[in-house]
C-alpha cells in the first residue's frame, strides 16, 4: 500500500497493484480461518469501532470477526442505541470515538459521502462499509477475491451486473473494481435503473439480458433497493423478473463454467429463482466466507503500519 492510502473510502483509492496486494494477503489470511485457533496477535491493543447507521448483519459481523481474528478490540455502535438518536452529528460522534481511543472506524451510513466526510475530522483509519448509493468497496474486494479464486484471474472475464444499478453501491464499487482488474463489465438493467454516466466506470450498458446471457462468465445479481426508490421505477416486480430475473430457463442457458453471484440479501422470485439460488453455479457462500479474509487483509494493511506512517 502506498503510504498516502490511509483510508478506504472508494475502491478507486486503490490502484491495481494495491488491489492485488489485498487479494494476495487475503489468501494468506484465509488459512487462519481454517485453523483450530483462528486468531493471530498482530493488532493486539488496537481498537476498531464498527459505526453502523444502517442495519446490517453480514457486513458488520464480517468486520467484527475479521478484526477479532487479528486480536484488535472491537466495539459495535449502532445508530439506534447511541447518542445519534439524541441528535449528535457524525462529526461529534467521530471525535468522541477518537477521544476514546478508536484506531479505526468502520462506517456504514445511508448518506453517500459520509465516510469521506468522517475521514476529514478524524485521524483514525476510516473504512467505508457502504455509504448510501455510492460505494461498498470491501464488497467489491471480496467479490474480486471470490472470482479470482474461482477463475484464477479476472483478466478478460465477462461480468454482467444485473438489476438495480442506480441504487446499488455494490454495483458501483464492483464495476469500478472489476474493470480496473481487466475484466469486461456489462451493466444490465431497465433504463430507469441505469445511472447517468455509467460508461465512465469503464462498462458497457445494456437494457436486455438475454442477448448476452450465454457469453457471461459471471452473472452478478442485485436486489431491488425499494427503500431507496423515491418514485416507482418499474411497472411491476413481475415485469422485472420476466426480463432480468435469473429464472430456471435462464440458468440452463448459462455458459458451462459460468458462476452466479449475489451480495445478499437475496429476494428469491424477484431477481433469482429459488433453485438457481441453490445451484452449484452459485458462489454466494464463497463470497460470504471470503469477506472475513479480505477484511482482515484490508484492516492489516491499513492499520498494521499506522505508527510508522505517523512518525515518518
Amino acid at each position, binding site marked *: 500500500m502506498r503510504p498516502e492510502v490511509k483510508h478506504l473510502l472508494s475502491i478507486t483509492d486503490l490502484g491495481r497493484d494495491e488491489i492485488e496486494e489485498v487479494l494476495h494477503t487475503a*489468501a*494468506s489470511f484465509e*488459512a487462519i480461518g481454517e485453523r483450530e485457533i483462528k486468531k493471530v496477535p498482530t493488532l493486539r491493543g488496537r481498537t476498531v469501532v464498527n459505526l453502523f447507521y444502517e442495519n446490517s448483519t453480514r457486513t458488520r459481523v464480517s468486520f467484527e470477526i475479521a478484526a477479532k481474528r487479528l486480536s484488535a478490540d472491537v466495539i459495535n455502535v449502532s445508530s439506534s442505541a447511541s447518542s445519534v438518536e439524541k441528535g449528535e452529528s457524525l462529526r461529534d460522534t467521530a471525535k468522541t470515538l477518537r477521544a476514546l481511543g478508536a484506531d479505526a472506524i468502520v462506517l456504514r451510513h445511508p448518506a453517500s459521502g459520509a465516510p469521506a466526510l468522517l475521514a476529514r475530522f478524524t485521524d483514525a483509519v476510516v473504512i467505508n462499509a457502504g455509504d448510501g448509493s455510492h460505494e461498498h468497496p470491501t464488497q467489491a474486494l471480496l467479490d474480486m477475491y471470490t472470482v479470482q479464486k474461482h477463475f484464477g484471474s479476472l483478466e478478460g472475464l465477462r461480468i454482467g451486473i444485473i438489476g438495480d444499478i442506480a441504487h446499488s453501491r455494490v454495483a458501483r464499487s464492483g464495476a469500478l473494481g472489476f474493470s480496473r482488474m481487466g475484466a469486461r463489465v456489462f451493466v444490465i438493467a431497465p433504463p430507469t435503473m441505469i445511472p447517468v454516466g455509467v460508461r465512465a466506470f469503464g462498462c458497457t450498458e445494456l437494457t436486455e439480458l438475454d442477448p448476452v446471457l450465454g457469453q457471461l462468465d459471471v452473472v452478478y445479481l442485485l436486489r431491488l433497493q425499494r427503500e431507496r426508490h423515491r418514485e416507482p421505477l418499474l411497472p411491476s416486480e413481475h415485469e422485472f423478473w420476466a426480463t432480468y430475473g435469473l429464472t430456471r430457463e435462464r440458468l440452463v442457458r448459462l455458459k458451462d463454467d459460468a458462476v452466479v453471484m449475489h451480495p445478499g440479501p437475496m429476494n428469491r422470485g424477484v431477481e433469482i429463482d429459488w433453485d438457481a439460488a441453490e445451484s452449484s453455479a452459485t458462489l454466494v457462500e464463497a463470497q460470504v466466507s471470503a469477506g472475513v479474509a479480505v477484511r482482515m487483509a484490508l484492516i*492489516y494493511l491499513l492499520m*498494521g*503500519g499506522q505508527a510508522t506512517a505517523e512518525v515518518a
Partner: protein
Amino acid sequence: MTTLKARVMEPDDFRRATTRVAHEIVERNQGASDVVLVGIRTGGDLWAGRIATEIERIEGKRPPIGSLDITLYRDDIAQRGPLPVERTEVPDLNGRVAVLVDDVFFTGRTVRAALDAINDLGRPRAIQLAVLVDRGHRELPMRADYVGKNLPTSARENVRVLFEEIDGSDGVEIHEPPRSAAEGQ
C-alpha cells in the same frame, strides 16, 4: 546499497553443514519418524527442504516439512508497517517433534515469533531449533540445537544466505552497508 565483504560458505561448505545437521537431528531424535521440519519463510523453508532430502538419504524416509510465515507474530509490526504476509502451511504437529528451521539466527526475535505461531498451530511434543548460520547478537534468551556455522559478525553487517534455486548457487555472504544506518536481517 550494501557491498560484499566476504563469501564465508561455498556450495561444498553449505552441503557439508546441511548433511551434518541432518545427521545430528536423526541422532538426537533416534531416527526421524516423529520429526516435522518447520521452515521459517523465506530462507528457512528452503533450507528445511535440503535437510529433508539429507534425512531421506540417511533414513530412507522423507520427514514432513512445513513453511511458517511469522509476520503476523512479529513484535515490531507497529514500527515497521505491514509487511507482506505469505501462506503458512504446516502439517499436523500434535505429539511430534517440531524442528524449527531458519537460515540466519540473529536477535532471536524471529524465533520467538515462530514459537508463538507454533503455539497457535498445535502442540508438538518438543520444539528444537536448527539454523544454518548463527551470527550472534541475541536480544532474547535463546540458543539453537543445531548450528550449521557459527559466524562472528558485527551488528551492522548483513548476512545473506544464497540458495541455488533463487541465486544460482548455494552459499553465505557477509555484506556491509556504506557508513552508518545499518539494519540487520
